[in-house]
């Protein structure tokens, strides 16, 4: 008789089995692929009776802006949201680059540029998966916890789940997070570093634009801000990051009890060429025209038996 396949949780963490082989390869002269640091400005602020989170919307791959309007504020629970810097911020970037690559394949033959982009994406895709999965997983765990206890989630619960997860990956998941939310015990704001250490602060900034944003906070923050003052201050801090840091740019996203996507758009596209961007049909010389009619390969049969239960 077989034993029950108990749903054992996976052991977690990375497998370091190939480290020795990698070391040997480096000694033999192999250049290891380096991981890309991405730019971001993410901030959080506690005001009189709540928390405000802010983030820019630029996702970069080296010198290229991969996504001009990505979402860096992620859902944890209805009352708890999390901003991600580092690889966590590349969610939209990776999906953006994959579609970019696919559209190029359709229009142009495979070029060396494409291979380069694909290599970038492969590296990031792996890291992205791990980083975003950890946020997804914590959000799932919080949901189950809410069902079991019948209570709303607390920010410290999300904090503990995230820091335990990141610690078990020993810093290899480079997700630097700003976690904020309001629960029965009040408003809370925390920063979480890739190795799993955390800070609890009244205002916090992370990412490459953190110094620019922190400068704004340090000079203008005071306790007992009202909601509107707080949102204005957060927007100002993000703008400081957008304009003074190359890694951050585009628009401002804000979360204060509800997600204000693209709260501010300080970088609109102003110039659009009058000539337009399409080319007339006579521009390219047609050498050969071949039309292949599409055949339907799938036959749909109506009726049939329902699946046996």
């Amino acid at each position, binding site marked *: *008789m*077989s*034993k*029950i*396949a*108990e*749903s054992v949780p996976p052991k977690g963490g990375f497998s370091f089995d190939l480290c020795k082989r990698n070391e040997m390869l480096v000694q033999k002269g192999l250049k290891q692929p380096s991981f890309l640091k991405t730019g971001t400005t993410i901030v959080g602020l506690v005001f009189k009776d709540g928390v405000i989170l802010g983030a820019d919307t630029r996702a970069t791959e080296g010198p290229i802006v991969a996504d001009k309007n990505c979402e860096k504020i992620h859902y944890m629970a209805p009352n708890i949201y999390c901003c991600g810097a580092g690889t966590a911020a590349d969610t939209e970037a990776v999906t953006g680059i994959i579609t970019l690559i696919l559209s190029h394949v359709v229009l142009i033959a495979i070029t060396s540029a494409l291979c380069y982009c694909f290599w970038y994406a492969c590296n990031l895709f792996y890291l992205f998966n791990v980083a975003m999965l950890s946020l*997804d*997983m914590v959000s*799932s765990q919080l*949901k*189950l916890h809410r*069902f*079991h206890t019948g209570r709303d989630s607390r920010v410290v619960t999300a904090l503990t789940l995230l820091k335990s997860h990141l610690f078990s990956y020993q810093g290899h998941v480079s997700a630097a997070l700003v976690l904020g939310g309001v629960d029965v015990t009040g408003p809370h704001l925390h920063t979480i570093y890739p190795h799993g250490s955390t800070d609890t602060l009244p205002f916090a900034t992370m990412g490459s634009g953190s110094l620019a944003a922190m400068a704004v906070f340090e000079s203008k923050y005071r306790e007992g801000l009202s909601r509107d003052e707080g949102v204005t201050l957060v927007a100002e801090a993000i703008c400081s990051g957008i304009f003074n840091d190359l890694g951050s740019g585009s628009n401002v996203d804000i979360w204060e009890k509800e997600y204000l996507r693209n709260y501010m758009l300080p970088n609109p596209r102003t110039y659009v060429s009058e000539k337009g961007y399409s080319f007339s049909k006579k521009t390219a010389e047609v050498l050969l025209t071949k039309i292949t009619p599409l055949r339907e390969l799938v036959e749909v049969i109506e009726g049939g038996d329902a699946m046996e*239960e």
Partner: protein
Amino acid sequence: MGDSQYSFSLTTFSPSGKLVQIEHALTAVGSGQTSLGIKAANGVVIATEKKLPSILVDETSVQKIQTLTPNIGVVYSGMGPDSRVLVRKSRKQAEQYYRLYKEPIPVTQLVRETATVMQEFTQSGGVRPFGVSLLVAGFDDKGPQLYQVDPSGSYFSWKASAMGKNVSNAKTFLEKRYTDDMELDDAVHTAILTLKEGFEGQISSKNIEIGVIGSNKIFKVLTPSEIEDYLQEVE
């Protein structure tokens, strides 16, 4: 569970081809408190008796109807602790499905997975079948649905069903009263009347539990005051 000393299953075939343990499990269900479910045109209602062993028990702490996902609820007849295990497993499976497919789990899928768990316990080493039958009520893209899952792991979709002590009377009553175009409110009234049929003692908002899911696709357990309103309407 499934220890090496118990690598043989306790549920074995009898010469007549029956699995006696499952029959006994169904008997355990049949001696549990009555519960029923009715599928209306625009929603589903499930209800159960909540008879507590003594007046000293704090009835607010007991909740027999549970939420599995925001749009799926469940009620049981039989052994309460067994149902707790199933509810926990089902919730986890629903969450895993969502994580993988980024889509709320369809009712049929969740029922199938729960039934699979129940079947596993009839064919594994060192464990016994669950002593509960579940009534799963949900509302998804296919509309309102009501399923019954038995200790054997078989499941059926019902328009209206009952389980527990008073099952035969309740089913007869439901057969007479059920119409395909029932509205949710009518269904709640019918559910209360069906419970009343076999109720020992005075029915009140404190000794029954009702869960509804309407076209808003949110499963809700009615509060005692809401149940009181429905009881007033029925009388």
